[in-house]
């Protein structure tokens, strides 16, 4: 079983929501980034999602985009990410997940990328611009190295398409709670609930809710329908305002 699933289910067993903090690689700067990861890990993250910077992050909201483009300007690339992770291999309790866009991964070489993930202790990958139809060759490259391609579904994903994604999926399913880009948005709880129920019926891996999540209170209404929560923009804003990751994680423990 993929370690992301294991970690999330550990939290579930303790009656808790699995925590999946997201940070762009190299945020807020090269040194601090690794310290933030450590803090998040110590604060009980189930999975840590690391953003791979891309010049054209079409699925990101403004907060994430700005933070990532800054990292890109600072020279962050895949080599730097893998290098840092290799050095710290085995130090994280949380499972590690890379998130990004296809082109940088494609240029890096999919096979090399998958091998480097394995070597660096990365257990999953999210590619924001890779729908089911195009994902075959990526899955094929990742599989031999035990790296899961995390499916992303949302409010407008039909049950049939969820089934396509569910087939052979491992790790967890990322459920996008708004129709729009990352960042804090008004949500439509009724519709989310409905679709979460559907996802629960289709997927036999944990379901993580993401996009626009700031505080545990937002999630009580979805209790039982989801297993984990992803938070990105809220965490970035929190760190940008000078506060610590640990403090952000506090209410979630």
């Amino acid at each position, binding site marked *: 079983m993929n370690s992301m699933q294991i970690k999330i289910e550990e939290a579930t067993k303790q009656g808790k929501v699995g925590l999946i903090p997201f940070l762009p690689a190299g945020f807020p700067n090269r040194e601090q980034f690794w310290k933030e990861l450590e803090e998040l890990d110590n604060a009980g993250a189930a999975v840590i999602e690391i953003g791979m910077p891309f010049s054209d992050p079409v699925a990101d909201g403004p907060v994430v985009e700005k933070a990532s483009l800054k990292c890109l300007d600072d020279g962050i690339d895949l080599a730097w990410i893998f290098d840092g992770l290799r050095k710290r291999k085995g130090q994280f309790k949380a499972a590690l997940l890379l998130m990004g866009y296809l082109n*940088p991964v494609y240029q890096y070489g999919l096979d090399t990328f998958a091998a480097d993930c394995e070597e660096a202790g990365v257990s999953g990958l999210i590619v924001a611009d890779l729908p089911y139809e195009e994902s075959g060759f990526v899955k094929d490259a990742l599989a031999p190295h035990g790296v899961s391609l995390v499916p992303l579904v949302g409010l407008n994903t039909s049950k049939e398409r969820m089934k396509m994604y569910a087939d052979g999926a491992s790790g967890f399913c990322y459920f996008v709670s708004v129709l729009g880009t990352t960042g804090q948005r008004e949500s439509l709880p009724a519709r989310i609930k409905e679709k979460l129920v559907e996802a629960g019926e289709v997927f036999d891996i944990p379901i993580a809710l993401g996009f626009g999540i700031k505080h545990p209170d937002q999630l009580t209404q979805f209790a039982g329908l989801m297993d984990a929560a992803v938070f990105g923009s809220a965490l970035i804003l929190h760190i940008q305002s000078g506060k610590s990751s640990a403090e952000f994680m506090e209410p979630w423990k």
Partner: protein
Amino acid sequence: MIMKKGYFGDFGGQFIPELLMPPLLELEEAMETILPSEEFQTRFINMLKENVGRPSAITYCPNLSKDLGLDLWLKREDLNHSGAHKINNTLGQGLLAKMMGKDVLLAETGAGMHGVATTVAAAMLDMKALIYMGATDIVRQAPNVGRMKLMGAEIVSVESGTKTLKDAINGALRRWLSDQETTHYCFGTAAGPHPFPTLVREFQQIISREARQQFMDRNDGNLPDMVVACVGGGSNAIGMFHHFIPDASVRLVGVEAAGTGEPGCDNSAPLNIGSDGILHGMKTKLLQTDEGQILPSHSVAPGLDYPGVGPEHAHLHATGRADYVTINDSQAINAFKVLSRREGIIPALESSHAVAYAIENKDKLQGKSVFICLSGRGDKDLGILDQIL
């Protein structure tokens, strides 16, 4: 030629977030049901005639032909309502969207021509136009911004990235994601995720359908030796090439923008100097770093200023059916002036790249008939020229 759904050889595809798949699938379906319907076809053909002014003329250039020692013909998309080929596509997509029940036409624009054409289509069809435009382009294309506002478009200034066309596309894709229920994304060129490259080509192929016949009518049934078009995203070029592709004797030449022209300068020539990659929903040739970051592009012609290219051109390039060459800023500006002076036709700076190809290669083209797609008029570019000259 399509091997896998939405592919042209190795290029194309649908590399977009899952959350955009439903509207793309809805569009694919509309292409199969609404597009071929008699109602759509009748209305569309009528709009092309009544609103665009099609068929657009073909023009023989007596003076330049003499100057260059070849036979120069132009397909006059500049005479279309709103001044470029873009409107063939926006009216098509607009009507399709209307019949799909959408009420907003969302579009990106660089030069502003596609934004204007989308706004025209929206006004005509009693829809709302929502135009994403890079902050830099808003400044350098002020007259087109004025036209769009006048016709009722809402313009969103895109402040991220290079603040030009590629960022406007990012912004528009994001907006589409949110508003997909009410909104059609009226993509401006034969690029982007499937089905856009096919859909846009479908609406632009009228260029060569007319042009091929018109040329033969004027030349005793003979075909031109060469067909030339500038390539930004590639919509006017694919429209101009399409019906000539089966004519093996006709050389097809796509002209990319070489930018200022020095080695290593920013340019907009992904087919000539780019590499395979994925951007804006498609696998194609891109200007990018070794790490897969998209490079800023440059051309004096804002409509060519794009680091990617439509996947069908990547395929025609790979198979060798079409040749892709480059023309730099100063060669294009020279062509802009030469055509204006010698024939009284002010070409768009984009189209000037195609004209420049004939001028720069006149020695090789002696006695040949060269048929150029004049994709748009250059009135919009006088401000740019003023600054340069």
